[in-house]
């Protein structure tokens, strides 16, 4: 059973027709869900706003107050990329709340997978800062809630951009393992392999920066060779995916070269990290090509539900094999260095 958790109705968080982070993205991914023809096989879960207790596990009260006040006064541009409108704080709280609602639904259901077609996206939002289209860190709010309940949480971030916000929030938290594959150099400029976590969580940040043009086989290799051993040792109870689709080759904001077939393989690999069924939730992050959003959503969810779906062939032969090896080496040195401190 597929759980789809997200705000129902219109989302007034809107940056205008020329801003790529717009409500049409949700229409595209929901088209991808409908393409699976699941009919009664979807459990739609509405998402109430995340409460302050959940939000303040991740964000400072000062930041939340400022963001709420900014929106109440009508909002505006927070930085050259990021905007907020009068309804944006409520929209962001509902996006964060969708994660919490999906976790409750998965616990009740006991199996299946949850998909969260939410916006604004979250993985760039830091504890006290909005950036990169993101206001509240949706995946972090859910991970922190699970961690507070004694669960060990793996976050896999396959968005083309590094999730600087998620990394910084769990930098020194031994309850959460953060794994990211991303194009580098690229916004936000973080995510080097040497960034491995703080002294209390040495090695629990896994960054595998990849060059422009890297293909699906390289991303797969990065996760299998660099991240998989760390994940096995960590033994997560839950897996949350920062599920950006801007690593697709058609995306206008990224320059990786993945196909829908690659996303299907990544989904299969990530599912294999799970300790038991019903502990996997995918949070929409980036992705700005309507066509790629639709087809990639169908590819990932169809694969996780063991359905036959039309897929573009997996890609291979792009650059990045040496980057994966370098990341492995750089991580080793960085973790060893923390151990000597």
């Amino acid at each position: 059973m597929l759980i789809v958790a997200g705000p129902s109705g219109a989302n007034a968080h809107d940056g205008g027709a020329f801003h790529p982070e717009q409500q049409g993205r949700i229409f595209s991914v929901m088209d991808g869900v409908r393409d699976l023809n699941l009919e009664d096989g979807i459990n739609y879960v509405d998402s109430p706003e995340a409460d302050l207790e959940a939000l303040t596990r991740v964000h400072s009260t000062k930041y939340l107050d400022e963001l709420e006040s900014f929106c109440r006064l009508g909002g505006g541009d927070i930085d050259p990329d990021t905007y907020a409108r009068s309804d944006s704080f409520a929209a962001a709280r509902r996006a964060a709340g969708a994660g919490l609602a999906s976790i409750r639904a998965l616990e009740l259901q006991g199996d299946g997978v949850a998909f969260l077609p939410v916006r604004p996206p979250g993985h760039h939002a830091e504890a006290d800062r909005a950036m990169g289209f993101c206001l509240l860190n949706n995946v972090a709010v859910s991970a922190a809630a699970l961690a507070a309940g004694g669960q060990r949480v793996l976050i896999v971030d396959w968005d083309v951009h590094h999730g600087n916000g998620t990394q910084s929030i769990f930098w020194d938290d031994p309850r959460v393992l953060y794994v990211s594959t991303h194009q580098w150099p690229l916004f936000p400029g973080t995510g080097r392999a040497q960034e491995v976590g703080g002294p209390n969580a040495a090695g629990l940040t896994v960054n595998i920066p990849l060059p422009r043009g890297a293909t699906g086989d390289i991303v797969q290799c990065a996760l299998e060779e660099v991240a998989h051993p760390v994940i096995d040792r960590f033994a997560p109870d839950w897996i949350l995916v920062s599920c950006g689709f801007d690593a697709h080759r058609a995306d206008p904001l990224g320059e990786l070269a993945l196909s829908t077939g690659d996303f299907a393989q990544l989904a299969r690999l990530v599912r294999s990290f799970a300790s038991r069924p019903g502990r996997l939730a995918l949070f929409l992050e980036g992705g700005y090509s309507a066509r790629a959003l639709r087809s990639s959503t169908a590819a990932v969810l169809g694969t996780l539900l063991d359905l036959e779906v039309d897929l573009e062939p997996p890609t291979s032969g792009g650059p990045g094999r040496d980057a994966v090896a370098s990341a492995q080496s750089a991580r080793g040195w960085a973790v060893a260095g923390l151990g000597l401190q």
Partner: protein
Amino acid sequence: MHAINKVAVGFDGSNDSRAALHWAASLAVATHASLKVVHAVGLLEHAGLSGHATPHQDVALKTAIGAGMDRSAVEWLVLDGDPCSALLRMNEAPYSVDLIVVGTRGSGEHSGSLLGSTSRELVEHSSIPVVIVPPQSSRN
């Protein structure tokens, strides 16, 4: 007191950032420091959906040279990230600057709002001195 050998200044083409650049260049001339002019590239600019670094570079170099800097002591840097993050990285190798200079408000920042204020976030997070230059200083 630590000598000022390298100065970084944020530049986004706004009037405030021009004032900051002029002030930073004047300081660099007086202290014989080098100057790194930092232009942060966000998601939209990278995709060609807003702004472009090249025209900013021309304006920045003219401003620095106009303040008396030798061209060889000015470096134009285009870094991925939001302005605050990009400037905070200037404290790290290989840049390792001694001082960060910014204008009061960057492009798109709102008067009266602290949210998204690069200058405030820098002051909160930087481990090296930060100078915030008011726009009026461009008259000096």
